[in-house]
């Protein structure tokens, strides 16, 4: 019941609720068109001005970290897909790299390049979803459908390569799940060739659009110092002028062999973050192009690590060691040494950290996902307090949260 409803039903002699301005509490979410899932933001309004914003999360908490503890290392991969459902391969990669680090395992170059290629495609797909939803939040409807059209092509590549559109679980500990089917690179090429043109199209619709600029420039400003203090990462950090990218700072999976820029903007507002993400799509296209050059046509896609990485199908059928290892891996799992590692990758949303603690058993003792959305969302009140309701929408949009990742 809201303020005037209460008055209407009270029989006490109250003739008006007018009084020294009581703030109006507005529940934005958990069901709301622009909270991207089940985020709930409790807004304290003075007219249309947001005095206080408090994000309330947990509506999608599924206890993935707890579930990981009761699965073997390999089984837990499927759970990681569900964390950030817009960038499942990034999560796969982060987790696999963490376990590989724990094991001290080196992945063959071919698998590394394919991993880079696919995660960059994931980044493009994720940014496309962000662009579309952000644009529709601000009322630009067509961009949403354009970007989903292109994303669909990328999803088709995932389906072609991994057999699944979204929950791919394609990266495995020590390499990849399957040999990519022949002709897959042609598909990738087709998407990559057309992508810059499509990005130009989006930019035509938005970048110099006066309304778009008015809606995003100077909105949700996060200074560089604030960005660091709030621990935001990814495009949000780079939009505030800090050129930090895990792919450059702590290269993993051979990212050091690729040539790409870290796009940054200094304004720290929604427009800056928009520009950064658009530039990132272009950079990712560059990386995918290089990866296509680098990927050898032939070669192993899994590390040579008997007892950890399952042997190939043929080996399993022909050699007794292969059969035994296969059986042991899929019944008991493998045993890494006790210890703790924290592996960081640059997911589309920012710094995805995977902390894995092993106690020397076949199941991880503790897995923690440091998800960028969770931390980035924390900065939301700073972005939108003192501004209008419409800006809250813009701010949520450029924070680019995925609720699966926030709540885990």
């Amino acid at each position, binding site marked *: 019941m809201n303020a005037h409803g209460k008055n209407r039903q009270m029989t006490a002699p109250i003739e008006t609720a007018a009084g020294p301005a009581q703030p109006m509490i507005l529940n934005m979410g958990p069901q709301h068109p622009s909270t991207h899932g089940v985020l709930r933001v409790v807004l304290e309004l003075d007219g249309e001005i947001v005095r206080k914003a408090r994000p309330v999360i*947990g509506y999608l908490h599924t206890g993935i*970290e707890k579930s990981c503890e009761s699965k073997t290392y390999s089984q837990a991969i499927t759970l990681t897909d569900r964390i950030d459902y817009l960038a499942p391969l990034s999560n796969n990669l982060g987790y696999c790299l963490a376990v590989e680090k*724990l094991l*001290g395992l080196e992945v063959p170059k071919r698998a590394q390049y394919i991993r880079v290629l696919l995660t960059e495609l994931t980044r493009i797909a994720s940014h496309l979803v962000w662009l579309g939803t952000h644009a529709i939040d601000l009322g630009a409807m067509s961009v949403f459908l354009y970007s989903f059209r292109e994303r669909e092509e990328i999803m088709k590549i995932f389906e072609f390569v991994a057999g699944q559109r979204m929950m791919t679980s394609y990266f495995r500990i020590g390499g990849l799940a399957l040999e990519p089917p022949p002709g897959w690179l042609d598909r990738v090429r087709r998407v990559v060739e057309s992508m810059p043109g499509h990005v130009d199209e989006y930019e035509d619709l938005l970048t110099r659009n006066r309304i778009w600029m008015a809606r995003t420039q100077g909105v949700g400003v996060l200074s560089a110092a604030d960005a660091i*203090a709030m*621990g935001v990462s990814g495009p949000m950090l780079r939009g505030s002028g800090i050129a930090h990218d895990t792919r450059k700072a702590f290269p993993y999976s051979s990212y050091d062999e690729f040539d790409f820029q870290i796009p940054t903007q200094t304004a720290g507002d929604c427009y800056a973050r928009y520009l950064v993400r658009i530039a990132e799509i272009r950079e990712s296209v560059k990386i995918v192009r290089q990866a296509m050059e680098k990927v050898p046509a032939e070669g192993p896609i899994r590390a040579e690590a008997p007892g950890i990485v399952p042997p190939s199908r043929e080996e399993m059928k022909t050699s007794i060691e292969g059969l035994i290892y296969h059986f042991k891996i899929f019944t008991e799992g493998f045993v890494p040494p006790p*210890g703790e*590692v*924290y592996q960081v990758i640059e997911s589309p949303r920012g710094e995805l950290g995977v902390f894995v603690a092993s106690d020397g058993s076949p199941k991880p003792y503790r897995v923690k996902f440091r998800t960028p959305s969770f*931390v980035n969302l924390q900065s939301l009140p700073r972005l939108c307090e003192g501004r209008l309701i419409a800006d809250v929408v813009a701010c949520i949009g450029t924070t680019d949260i995925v609720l699966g990742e926030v709540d885990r």
Partner: protein
Amino acid sequence: MESQENDRNPAVEKLRAWDAEAVAEVITFRGETTVVVPVRHLRAAAEFLASEPSLRYSFLSDITTVDRFPLEPRFEVNYHLLALERKDRLRLKVMVPGNDPALPTVIPVWPTANWHERENFDLFGIRFEGHPDLTRIVLPDDWEGHPLRKDYPVEGYR
């Protein structure tokens, strides 16, 4: 096994030079350095690491807990730090006893710790003293128990 060697990590050296008692133990594993800090030194050590000009661990990536039930001290709270300029990571580890687990908050040092601490409070029941709003974050407010503890039944309490 976790190797326990005296690393040449400059951060550890500086921390030790600043206050020898702040470094209880240094663990290096797979190239990651972990400094075990006693609870009472945590806040000061955090401030030092964040503000010392040659270190500048200004970015707190994560706070996470490992429950070593039934060992004591039961909880290991890990702080993952990042020095943006130097591109260096460091893990602070604090051992917290199982009965009445409590820690000083690091929000004044790293404001981002707010939600991380709430999450650890929610899932492990570790209190962060001085936290402005220590409430459950992902679970409902009336939830019983702390699910990521090892003695929490997987089926739940109810």
